[in-house]
């Protein structure tokens, strides 16, 4: 039997997936595959784990989440809107002229966005800086960052991995959205970063490997990570690109192509079917 909380978070992830499809369908461009693969992780963070207050987005002791794989902006926007940072209707403005919802997250425009990302490989360094500042100030906030498995081909990621361990940033938890696909094809064929767990471990990180779509495993890994002392933590989340929409799952072609109106409808119908309790409202209860 799953707990009420896990059921709530699964439903929330499904709502986030529906918003992703709606937003991308309306925008006519964007990145569905890597947004859908990260929906469960992002739901767990925004509706259970992160100590945040949408009414006071800049409060100094808040937890921080950086979407380093910035092209998955729709998953972040959907979570922020559903968490109350801005009206959910605004999701329909994604990628339009004058919108606060830029193609990649812009911290200057949208409340709740902790870092402007998009040029891959930069988010972990920024997370390091935030974690260092937290230690310097004796504050107990935690910093979370989500990396893509194509993204870790960037050299800067490994500079940052080295530094996070060197400075013992145990207030930093990273997720690897290990969906196995990048624009040009399977990650293993384009430029294999494997074995990823061994690499992060060799760089001095605590490493866990989980099913990135199993809410209980996500929560368990996060709880375990927060208890690790002296090391940054990597949670390698085995995920499926395009998760939740049958015709997008594991299809490289859906990395950076938005669904056409009829495809969006089919996708929404599928997600509707997955939804256990439609019209779910309410907020997570924080950490």
């Amino acid at each position, binding site marked *: 039997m799953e707990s009420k909380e896990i059921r709530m978070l699964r439903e929330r992830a499904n709502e986030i997936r529906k918003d992703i499809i709606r937003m991308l369908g309306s925008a006519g461009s964007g990145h569905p595959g890597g947004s859908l693969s990260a929906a469960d992780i992002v739901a767990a963070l925004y509706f259970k784990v992160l100590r945040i207050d949408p009414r006071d987005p800049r409060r100094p002791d808040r937890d921080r989440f950086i979407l380093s794989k910035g092209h998955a902006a729709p998953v972040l926007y959907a979570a922020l809107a559903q968490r109350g940072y801005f009206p959910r209707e605004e999701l329909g403005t994604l990628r339009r002229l004058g919108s606060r919802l830029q193609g990649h997250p812009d911290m200057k425009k949208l409340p709740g966005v902790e870092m402007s990302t998009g040029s891959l490989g930069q988010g972990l360094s920024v997370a390091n800086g935030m974690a260092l500042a937290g230690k310097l100030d004796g504050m107990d906030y935690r910093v979370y960052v989500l990396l893509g498995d194509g993204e870790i081909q960037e050299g800067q990621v490994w500079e940052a991995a*080295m530094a996070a361990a060197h400075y013992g940033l145990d207030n930093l938890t990273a997720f690897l959205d290990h969906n196995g696909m990048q624009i040009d094809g399977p990650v293993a064929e384009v430029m294999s970063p494997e074995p990823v767990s061994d690499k992060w471990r060799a760089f001095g990180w605590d490493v866990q490997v989980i099913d990135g779509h199993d809410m209980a495993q996500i929560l368990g890994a996060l709880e375990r990570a927060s208890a690790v002392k002296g090391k940054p933590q990597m949670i390698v989340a085995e995920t499926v690109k395009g998760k939740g929409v049958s015709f997008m799952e594991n299809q490289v072609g859906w990395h950076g192509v938005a669904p056409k109106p009829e495809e969006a409808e089919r996708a929404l119908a599928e997600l509707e079917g997955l939804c256990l309790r439609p019209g779910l409202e309410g907020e997570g209860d924080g950490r």
Partner: protein
Amino acid sequence: MSGKTATREAYGRALAELGGYNKRVVVLDADLSKSTKTADFARVFPERFFNMGVAEQNLIGTAAGLAAAGKIPFASTFAVFATGRAFDQIRNSVAYAGLNVKIAATHAGVTVGEDGGSHQSVEDIAVMRSLPNLTVFVPADEAETFGAVRAAAEIDGPVYIRLGRAGVPPVHGQGFRFVPGKAVIIREGRDAAIIATGIMVAAALKAASALAGEGIEARVVSMHTIKPLDVEAVLSAARETGALVTAEEHSVIGGLGGAVCEAVCQLYPVPVKRVGLPDVFGESGKPEELLEKFGLTPSGIADAVRGAVKMKKAGI
């Protein structure tokens, strides 16, 4: 005239002083702290100093994160690495994100000397100046460096400070006050104006003295802020003298010369001669030999002034 001080040395001392009264200041380096002089800060405030190793991209990204969490990070390495190796991090994680990061880059220009062209940044002003949101300071001496460092800490936004390796004499008198974006006339003249930046300000003063002996009175302007450019100072120099010379230890493309030409072309066209590297990389040699080779000298500037005055008289 008192002795010479490299602007990087002044930077180290200014930074240590700043750290004493501003606890938000943190400093990062990429394995060059003895050369960039951030070691002066590290000695007194070790808990606020972070060596990132030979990893400039992570240096700038980490500084961005510290800034996002309320710190005032000064990130230092050589200019060629800061603005070249980490350009995308400066562009996206700092300037585009509008974060309060100060990039203080030393060993700019050919006065790096013997290390050669791989280490001599001749394009950093151009690339930094082209980024929206960024303020660009190029101090000429110790006083301007102290002013630039203090001002950078006050500015809420990204700042690039270009510093040098070689000693430079003071160019300002006692009463000097550094005001960001405000050029300083340090010698008056009506026949031409030399607008100089960095180590070329001292050379410009010498050039003006030499020219005075020939009856050419040249104004000398220290343009310590390249961005935002003091357009008013450029235009009054153009109106009042009718002939301009720019002088910088940098390529003639895109730096101070480029900025001045952009301003006068659009607003008050007058002849402009640019002293700088003629679209070439540097090479190994003693700093003074390299300055001589590329005409970054009082006589090189004086020649340019004579040329500009000639063009003015010919009505070009």
